[in-house]
């Protein structure tokens, strides 16, 4: 039985190494899986915000907010547009559409295996 599972693990590990959609999902989960970033995304879902607005409503310091904002912007969860001398951040819907599609593929694959 142990031999069988060992082979299985090899297969699974190989699959994970080459699978880009798994990487994408894991990355998304890692980024969203933080309380502050999660709250920022929820906040921006309602309306675009300036950095100072986010700071006030989350009650966090400016450096920590801009740290989270930077991470979210690098991974294209949000995008910024210039508004006078300030930057306004809004949510990028395409990223979440892509995430939903990949998640559905994944979950269907799992479902078909009598998960």
């Amino acid at each position, binding site marked *: 039985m142990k031999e069988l*599972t*060992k082979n299985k*693990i090899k297969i699974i590990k190989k699959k994970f190494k080459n699978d880009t959609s798994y990487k994408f999902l894991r990355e998304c989960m*890692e980024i969203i*899986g933080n309380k502050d970033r999660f709250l920022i995304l929820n906040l921006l879902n309602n309306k675009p915000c300036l950095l100072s607005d986010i700071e006030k409503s*989350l009650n966090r310091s400016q450096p920590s907010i801009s740290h989270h904002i930077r991470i979210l912007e690098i991974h294209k969860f949000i995008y910024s547009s210039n508004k006078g001398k300030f930057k306004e951040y809004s949510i990028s819907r395409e990223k*979440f559409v892509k995430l939903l599609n990949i998640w559905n593929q994944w979950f269907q694959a799992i479902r078909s295996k009598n998960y």
Partner: protein
Amino acid sequence: MAQIKVMIVEDELITAEAIAILLKKLNYNPIAIISSGEEAISKIKNLNLDLILMDIILAGTMDGIETANFINKNYDIPIIFITAYGDKKTLNRAKLSEPYGYIVKPITNEDDLLPTIELAMYNHQVKNKLKKGNEKFEQIKQLIQPDKNILPSQVNISLEKRNYLEQANEDLDPMLEIEVLGEKINLVEWLKSFSNPERFLILELIKSQPLKLDEIQMFISKSQSTSSHHIKILEKTGFVKGWKNGKYIYYSLNKSKIMEFVHLWENWIKNLSS
């Protein structure tokens, strides 16, 4: 330093103006001259006053002492009486309203006013400090009372801790306002348990059959402490449940919990993608 704002309550306008001129010479700021007690009470809210000079005989139905009593009850402003009456009867009545000073008219030059006003302001500061000190003392007394056996040094620590906890609670409040549902916070924790590749591997492994800890440890080829750490996190979120069989604990998937997560997660992404 900002100028001290003074209100003069006096029924004779000429006397009031004369006092105002003297105050200006002494570098105070007389911002209002009012003739009746009722008017003084109605205006006191809007003016950010530091001191009130009050005559005892006023134009309205209230006299100076009654007005002073009312102000003392509701506001924290020092009052000095200015009056022509120096007799014992009036003085005794005025005493009860706890004035900061008592000046007998006529007032001819600055020297009649300056010492009383300066002393009044100083006494007011001292009184406020004492009040604050007393409040702090009461707070500490209340905190100490329930645990009398604790040594003084430990009391200090617990007090600091309590203050810290109170602050932390205050900090949390705005967060709750943003958060639409309490459930959604769980989602963050659940995502954290998925985001680690080793934990994902563990979930993938035990979905087909229950496994022991040492088997899991062997398969992910990490140390015992690492794998039990991962298992602990997964158990905390509820995706994995352990059950005892003989002397081993076997771990298996909690499917209903995972379906709950999937439901919440899908709804959340759909909400953000449209």
